[in-house]
């Protein structure tokens, strides 16, 4: 009997209802290890809910969610905690812990989940900050950083434990085009050089074209189209075509 690698992320008929509104409606998909998928859609179509459901921050009303073959839905807290260590999450507004320094933010997951000494953690943190170009900002407080810098610190923190899957919520939201391009470049490096599985939620099409090998379009809680950017360019659905033609800046 041959063993097959389970998908990095899989949704099995997932339905989520929030405040009486069906946000995800019987959604199923699978993302293979190393794949980079961008989830597109108008605001309020369930993109961020999709990411939070993968992370187990939200529980669907129906259906099951799997991460690397392990079920997230209704997983006991300690199992969920272990699964989350294999996932990194870059939040839309970075969600840095504002009472601790940049360095301590990146060190936080390492202190919680590894047996590394302070010196080893310090070395890893400096390495992660150098990767996002912020090696000199170790001691700064999050409030002293620009939006782009906060996003990069958020990325360094999300990658602190070298997760196999990175979930990214609106990487270019609120950023100028140059900084947004820098973040896209960092995500591309993770995809190409480390083989990290990427699930990126965005409504910035140029960004999605650069990062995603596969794009999924959500509308009214359902996946209405998926495929490469080129295949979606020729979609018969007006909504998808309109989306693909847009130059949204996030």
């Amino acid at each position, binding site marked *: 009997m041959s063993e097959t690698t389970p998908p990095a992320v899989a949704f099995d008929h997932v339905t989520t209802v929030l405040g009486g509104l069906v946000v995800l409606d019987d959604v199923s998909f699978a993302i293979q290890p190393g794949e980079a998928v961008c989830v597109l859609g108008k605001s309020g179509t369930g993109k961020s809910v999709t990411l939070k459901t993968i*992370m187990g921050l939200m529980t669907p009303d129906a259906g099951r969610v799997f991460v690397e073959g392990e079920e997230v839905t209704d997983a006991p807290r300690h199992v969920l905690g*272990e699964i*989350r260590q294999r996932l990194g*999450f870059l939040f839309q*507004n970075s969600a*840095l812990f504002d009472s601790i320094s940049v360095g301590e933010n990146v060190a936080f997951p390492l202190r*919680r989940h590894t047996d590394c000494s302070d010196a080893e953690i310090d070395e890893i943190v400096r390495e992660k900050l150098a990767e996002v170009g912020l090696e000199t900002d170790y001691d700064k407080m999050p409030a002293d950083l620009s939006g782009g810098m906060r996003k990069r610190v958020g990325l360094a923190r999300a990658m602190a434990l070298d997760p196999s899957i990175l979930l990214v919520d609106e990487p270019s939201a609120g950023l100028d085009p140059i900084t947004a391009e820098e973040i896209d470049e960092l995500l591309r490096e993770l995809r190409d050089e480390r083989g990290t599985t990427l699930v990126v939620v965005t409504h910035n099409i140029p960004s999605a074209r650069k990062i995603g090998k596969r794009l999924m379009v959500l509308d009214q809680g359902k996946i209405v189209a998926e495929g490469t950017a080129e295949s979606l360019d020729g979609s018969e659905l007006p909504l998808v075509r309109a989306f693909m033609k847009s130059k949204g800046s996030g």
Partner: protein
Amino acid sequence: MTSVGSLTLFAGRALRDLFRPPYEFAEITRHLFELGARSAPLLAVSGLAVGVVLSMHTRATLERFGAETMIPAGLAMALVRETGPLTAGLLLAGRIGAGIGAELGAMRVTEQIDALEASGVDSFRYLVVTRVAACIIALPLLTTILNFAGILGGYFAESLVSGMSLQLYMQRAFAMIDFPTFVPSTLKTMVFGFIIATASSWLGFNATQGTEGVGRASTQSVVLSSILLIVANVLLVQAIFVMFPSVR
């Protein structure tokens, strides 16, 4: 009714997790400093003022009966039994309650609580249980500070009027303060600490609608903590009377 149920469940979980390791000792220590030690000056100054005012009122009453020698004991009894714990509780509901409500509310609306969970950390244990533990430990200590400052304030007021010595004042003040008088009334503030931390954390944890929601969580934390604390005090005083009949 939904809110009452939600708060009850939240408090029940806090109580259960208080007795379940592992404990976040570093965070508890940090909160003891932030919520406890930093509140000490407020309690000390308030205690002094309360002591001066109580002394003036006690003198005005006892003078009529020629019982001025009872002023230190009367003031100390009033402070230790009721005025001290309730004043400390209400002051801390303002200072600590507002702080916890605002801090956790801000963490909720900026997704920092989600970020904690995403880091594989139980946000409830890390944010709520640590604050509840710190408040339970801090309240009796801060109440004792307020009580002592109050007695000292009473001495300052009394010495100005009658020139009574500190030694004599303290001797008379503590003459009637025995175990059943001091310990139950001081330890009941552990319940106040639980109420303040739990109610404020619940409001902060459930904050919505951005900065407006944070402000609301902060204000409501003070109001809810104060109301629950006053109601709980009635029940606690009754319970103390039942358990320690000599206090009546």
